[in-house]
């Protein structure tokens, strides 16, 4: 397994270089360093001299990918791509275009993102699985059909509606939690409870339907019939046997997203004023801050690869027949 993991990590390096190259190309096809400078320097009284100075101070005055004026290895290394990308492989993200340390910013914003993402993920998973098992338990009855109809309805509603509707009803009409904002420590509870509930509600439709499908597939298998024949209650059959055997397809979808929880949610964080990584990314895109955008894309790629590796490992945990070689 160790050899397998090392091999996967080594595979990740060219993938990350490719992702970096793609991000770089896409970003600079749309924006030139001059555009970035103008965006940062504002609208009024911006001279070409100021733009050139801004680029020079931040290293955007170099060629993009190939420095034909340089000698030897400098042809590749004395370029914007190299200067901005090489250090990221040791997780040195450098500074944003407004001069702040990106690493510190990420570390600071990760907490608020996780405060919402982890409970939403864990409680959500429990709710989705329970709801799916419930529908499976009452399969082919009115309750099951009503549950499926509810899922389709919930899936059809935009996530924004849940947010605005939730804020309107829970915060504005009932005055139960603040509409938006954030505080650290235990004080965070009243700020995050609504985003968490909305996050869970927003995922019920699609997740529960998917899990229901998995459970229905399992429930027709021979081992379930055997369990029933042994006299086990339906609840016990479902929660002990079916759930366990349905874990592989569930894990495939679930484990891979665990590392991405760090990245936060763009919409939720923006509407609830949560100072997380989601809002950091969207702000950077709006401000055309390439330094932050490439750092966040790189981090997302790394976390996704970690998620895939964790998924592989989790197979060996839930299914002893699986061996990583």
């Amino acid at each position, binding site marked *: 397994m160790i050899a397998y993991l090392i091999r996967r990590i080594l595979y990740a390096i060219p993938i990350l270089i490719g992702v970096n190259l793609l991000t770089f190309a896409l970003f600079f096809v749309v924006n030139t360093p001059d*555009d970035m400078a103008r965006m940062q320097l*504002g609208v009024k*009284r911006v*001279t*070409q001299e*100021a733009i050139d100075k801004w680029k020079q101070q931040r290293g955007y005055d170099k060629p993009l990918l190939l420095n034909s004026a340089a000698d030897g290895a400098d042809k590749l290394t004395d370029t914007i791509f190299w200067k901005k990308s090489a250090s990221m492989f040791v997780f040195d993200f450098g500074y944003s275009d407004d001069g702040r*340390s990106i690493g510190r910013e990420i570390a600071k914003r990760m907490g608020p993102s996780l405060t919402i993402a982890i409970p939403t993920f864990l409680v959500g998973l429990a709710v989705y699985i329970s709801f799916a098992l419930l529908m499976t338990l009452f399969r082919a009855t009115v309750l099951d059909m009503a549950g499926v109809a509810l899922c389709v309805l919930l899936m059809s509603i935009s996530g924004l509606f849940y947010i605005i509707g939730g804020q309107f009803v829970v915060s504005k009409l009932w*005055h139960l939690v603040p509409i*938006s904002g954030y505080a650290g420590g235990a*004080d965070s509870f009243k700020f995050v409870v609504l985003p968490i509930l909305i996050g869970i509600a927003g995922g019920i439709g699609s997740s529960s339907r998917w899990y229901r499908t998995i459970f229905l597939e399992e429930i027709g298998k021979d081992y379930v019939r055997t369990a029933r024949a042994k006299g086990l209650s339906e609840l016990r059959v479902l929660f002990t046997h079916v759930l366990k055997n349905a874990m592989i397809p569930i894990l495939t979808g679930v484990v891979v997203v665990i590392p991405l929880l760090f990245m936060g949610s763009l919409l939720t964080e923006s509407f609830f004023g949560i100072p997380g990584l989601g809002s950091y990314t969207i702000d950077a895109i709006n401000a055309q801050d390439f330094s932050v955008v490439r750092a966040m894309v790189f981090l997302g790629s790394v976390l996704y690869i970690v998620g895939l590796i964790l998924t592989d490992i989790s197979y060996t945990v839930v299914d002893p027949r699986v061996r990583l070689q």
Partner: protein
Amino acid sequence: MKVLFSVSLCLLLASCDGGLWNDPYPAGDAGKSILYTAFLERPKHLDPAQAYSENEYDFLALIYSPPLQYHYLKRPYQLVPLAASAMPKVSYLDKRLKRLPDNVAPERIAYSVYEITIKPDMQYQPHPAFELQYLRLKDGDLDGIHSLGDFARAGTRPVLAADYAYQIKRLVHPQLHTPIAGVMEEYIVGLKEFSATLQAAVQAHPEEFLDLNDYPLSGVEVVDDTTYRITIHGKYPQFAYWLAMPFFAPMPWEVERFYAQPGMKERNLTLDWWPIGSGPYYLSENDPNRRMVLTRNPYYSSEQYPSEGETGDTASGFLDDAGTRLPLIDSIVFSLEKETIPYWNKFLQGYYDASGISSDSFDQAVQVSVSGEANVSDAMKAQDIMLSTAVATSTMYTGFNWLDPVVGGPSERATRLRRAIAIAVDFEEFISIFANGRGISAQSPLPPGIFGHHEGCAGVNRYVYDCVQDKPKRKSIAEAKRLLAEAGYPGGVDAKTKQPLVIHFDTTATGLGNKSRLDWLRKQFDKLGIQLDVRSTDYNRFQDKIRRGDTQMFFIGWNADYPDPENFLFLLHGPQGKVKFSGENASNYSSPEFDRLFERMKNMDNTPQRQQIIDDMLEVLRRDSPWLWGFHPKSYVLQHGWLHNIKSNIMANNKLKYWRVDAEQRDKMRREWNQPERAPLWFGAAAVLLFGVWMWRVLRKREQAK
């Protein structure tokens, strides 16, 4: 599950601090003199040499004390001393540095000397840079330091005239971008050469700290601890307005040295992020991702609430606090609020003390009477919410590119075409539909309140409007069609080529949200039979097109730096042309007559002679019609009844120091408006319980049946 429930319960109990459930602030803040407001976007710069945006000035104007400021109550806007003990003494010199009389003709003046004496009792906010031990930090001294508050000690010192001189030097610091550096290099004697000297010094020793005290600047002289002089080229009365901006605030040299130490930047401890000033507040909490807090500067004692204002200010209660020491509020909490819906709802709940009005909320907040007067709606009145309005010192206009062969240039054909379009595009309708009436149609680039602007018939653009009952009335579309035909486009068709006239309009308005506006604009051109081709693009491409002159018509705006006609009329000054000179004249308008008048007007004091020249300039502009003059936006601000001394002042960014809050009244109203509705919780719990019991029974039955 049990663990999760227990943790949630503990957190719930911990977060119940005895306050209202939906209160976003700690219960301990109740009853305190705190102003709650929001910021929509994190400021990019807080260094007074670099900041230039309105959202940055919302903070900086309260932290820094430049020599001058705008009087809070008087109109038209008037400069008064802030850090200066009196208005600067201005003396004029000829080329041989011989003193000239004050009323000398501007062309004879070679130099103007501004002598500024600052108040002697001013002190800086508490800051670790004033503790000598922190100017010589060693390895490891910064361990555990993440913000300025983590330093064990913070000192202060008196503000010196030398600090003002130091900041002027910073305007051309090679490692900073000062937006006004180019303008100041033209005016302040020796600043251009000083800039070159600093550039050379940095290039010679790029890694070393650049100590500006080592380099003299000939145009700035420190006379003594409280007096300094700035010498500028020629006569430039608008220089006084720059002295009211943070660019000219004092900067202690120690602070630059403090922040230049190794390890500071890595911790986001920079002057651009942690300002240091001598103003009424200092930045005590700086988390631009969530909230920024200004706290009263304990050493600020140099200013009182004004005791004079406009007629009617006494009756309105604006002078109730006359003579009281400023600021009147202990702390200002700015919370990041990116979306308008939560902002608005929190305002209605009493968690923000004042708010603007988004288009979505306008009908809920404001009702406009038959006479056009805006008042708060009955729902707002019931909450004792009040409205204050003011016309912004801004203009939103549609420019014609003067270099374009169809719509540009001084020819009679193009002029008539532009005038015809100016009549057809009904900005009164635009303001009514898209701005909820929050604006006034512009008769020239000059908004009300700016010297040179005329009210009534005298201020009406006779090429587009008639004056009826002392008010402008747009000319008929028939008149526009007549002009269009005279221009050679009868019915919107080119008389020579028989092809329909197509005009390209560049804008940054994209997406569904702007579709209705663009459709409206097309309809305006349809009135004349002209086809409008809208070229929506992103901001960068738009700017690029403007720079290259690759436009025919475009929509753009301008916010005044200072309330002087020069700051609007220079937008049409030929030598400021965007394409040829990279200036601010985006339409590239060029008129020798206008330029000549501008040169005469720009350095004059506000005299009847200046008014006459401005009148002549506006006549040239209206005749040539290089812009559709568009509109001047009106700002609408709502505030709760517990907030006092709110008078709209577009120019003063430091107005919050005059505001007063009745915290007891606020707490009372918040409690009244925000009692939690517990019934839905009980109903929800009961429903879950009943559903669970019912399900359990159904399952039991099924098991038993098996």
